[in-house]
């Protein structure tokens, strides 16, 4: 028996397969695209080809697309899954988890290895991966390139939190001849400040803070967030899979029931 966690987010779909000893046997990320249903089906095919056919294993679905996965045995929200995944990955029972996702940012206060409190941004995309994506497009770079560029910039800021208005601001900066590095700096700075302001409403003091989600690969974002939060933010290479790892762990819990 294997345990499969599928996390269909707004931008990317992440899959993790675990064995009874929580060893990760398979991990995959793909764009969600415009149809969660199609994405779910593609993931099913990939899993079957890799020898982990959902029908023979336990599947827990999470993320916005969790209801679009017909082969899921159970759904669990991404808050609970990210918490479980982060606890498993980072090994802390008490910590703060910051997940910067495609369309929302979650701040989770973890105590005794479970969710004690959480908050999410509202409908607005300020401080999310989508904000970064839109600005990267405007600058004709990839989101990854943008965060690298940002490391070399300084002294520029974007004041609008609204993605649409912020894009106009970026265009004005381009028109003014501002260096790309400085604009990239301003974009990342805007996200980091927004996330930090959300985090300030939670009690994260004296606790390790861990970053999960699609932006975890960016050393610059990690550093900028650490500076803004005045705490060393930790991350891990697999942190983008935190939701699917958590889901796989819940699949393992549910596993006994299915047999």
């Amino acid at each position, binding site marked *: 028996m294997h345990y499969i966690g599928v996390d269909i987010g707004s931008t990317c779909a992440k899959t993790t397969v675990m064995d009874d000893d929580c060893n990760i046997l398979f991990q995959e990320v793909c764009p969600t695209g415009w149809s969660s249903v199609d994405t779910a089906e593609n993931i099913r095919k990939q899993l079957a080809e890799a020898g982990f056919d959902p029908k023979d294993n336990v599947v827990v679905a999470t993320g916005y697309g969790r209801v679009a996965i017909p082969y899921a045995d159970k759904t669990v*929200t*991404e*808050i*609970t899954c990210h918490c479980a995944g982060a606890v498993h990955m980072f090994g802390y029972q008490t910590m703060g988890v910051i997940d910067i996702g495609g369309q929302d940012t979650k701040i989770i206060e973890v105590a005794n290895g479970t969710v*004690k409190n*959480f908050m*999410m941004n*509202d409908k607005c995309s300020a401080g999310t991966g989508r904000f970064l994506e839109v600005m990267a497009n405007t600058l004709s770079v990839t989101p990854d390139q943008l965060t690298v560029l940002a490391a070399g910039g300084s002294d520029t800021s974007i004041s609008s939190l609204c993605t649409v208005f912020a894009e106009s601001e970026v265009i004005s900066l381009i028109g003014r001849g501002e260096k790309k590095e400085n604009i990239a700096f301003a974009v990342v700075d805007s996200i980091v400040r927004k996330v930090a302001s959300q985090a300030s409403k939670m009690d994260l003091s004296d606790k390790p803070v861990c970053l999960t989600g699609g932006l975890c690969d960016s050393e610059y974002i990690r550093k900028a967030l650490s500076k803004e939060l005045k705490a060393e933010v930790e991350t891990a290479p697999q942190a983008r899979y935190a939701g699917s790892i958590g889901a796989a762990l819940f699949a393992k819990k549910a596993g006994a029931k299915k047999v």
Partner: protein
Amino acid sequence: MSDYLQMWKDLDMDVETHDMLCQVLPTAFGDTFLSMENRPESMGFYDFVVSEIHGIRPSEMIAAQKEGKKVVGTFCVYVPDEVINAAGALFSGLCGGSQFWVPGGEKYLPKNTCPLVKASLGARFDRTCPFFRIVDLIVGETTCDAKKKAYEILGEDVPMYIMDMPQMKRDIDIQKWADEIKAFAAKMEELTGNTITVDGLNDAIKTINAKRKALARIFDARKNADNIPISGLDALLIMQIAFFDDPARCAEMANKVADELEQRNKDGVSVFPAGTKRILLTGTPLAIPNWKLHHIIETSGAAVVCEEMCTGTRYFENLVEEDNATLDDAYMALSKRYMKNNCSCFTPNQGRIDDILRMAKEYNVDGIIDTNLKFCCLYDTERRNVEKAVNEAGIPFLGIETDYTDSDAEQLRTRIEAFVEMLG
């Protein structure tokens, strides 16, 4: 709905636009209410009222007007229904609870006004709600800034009377509210041509107290720790309809529901599986037909067992002292009861926090969800103190801000499901 077309035309309503509302309501009601299992049989009355929502009660009101009676519209649980009743007039709550009316209100109000206020103005100015057309007078009150200014605009189209609500709870404020009630009584006498007598007012106090007691019985039945005899949605619907129904009939129907719920508790008949998480919902009112949050909560593995809201406990808790010797005594008795209500327009407002902590115990809740209508600055700001006290009491807390649209339904569902998962 039966044929009320001529009545709506006589009320100078925009019947074409109103038809659109009449078409969507049965679907919304069916999806939300009729899909629930094991509802109390006595909900049949309330289902019927909703099916004829813009027909049956309005036609009663119009019949009363033909007999020379007046109909008074109100927006707030601080306006004393007893005085209206004692003057021989009918009263009707008017708060708008549908997105349908919001764009109409936005023609007159800034966008960042709470949806309840926007919907209320939209319903009047767009001529798509019979209750707003029938009323001879609308009584406003100075509870929040948005309402105060909106009443000035509403006053261009309909006669308004404003009661000046104190915002503190000192003895001088209670005296001040008694004086306001007295002045309102004079206004009601002028409107109706009737004299308010001490006997008449005492009778009205008894009528409204009876209604409060009946509604309180329903809530008492919801306190049962081992059984959930009625869904939060059905309880909310009863409260929403209480605002515009005849008070004696409201009491009679609510007592019938309470009888059934008490029996259900004895027989262990629950509308939710054992172990369903019990939620206390606090915050801004949920005017009819705003059923969004209850529906999401109750399809996410939890049940609402109490509403600390105007459309909840604030409507019926505390009784008015009966058998007053003089009119002035009666006005003071009314003031004392109404001033026990804890709206966030008061400062300080520790009473509301005490209420919430008390209800969390009385209703055996697992968690508290505090909801705020977008742009309600008072409840929004008060949330910080509520959350702090609730956290100190060790009760899980989730704060939500939303409006009447469905655009955030999935985000809310994720938050609420995660909260229910957190409750274990």
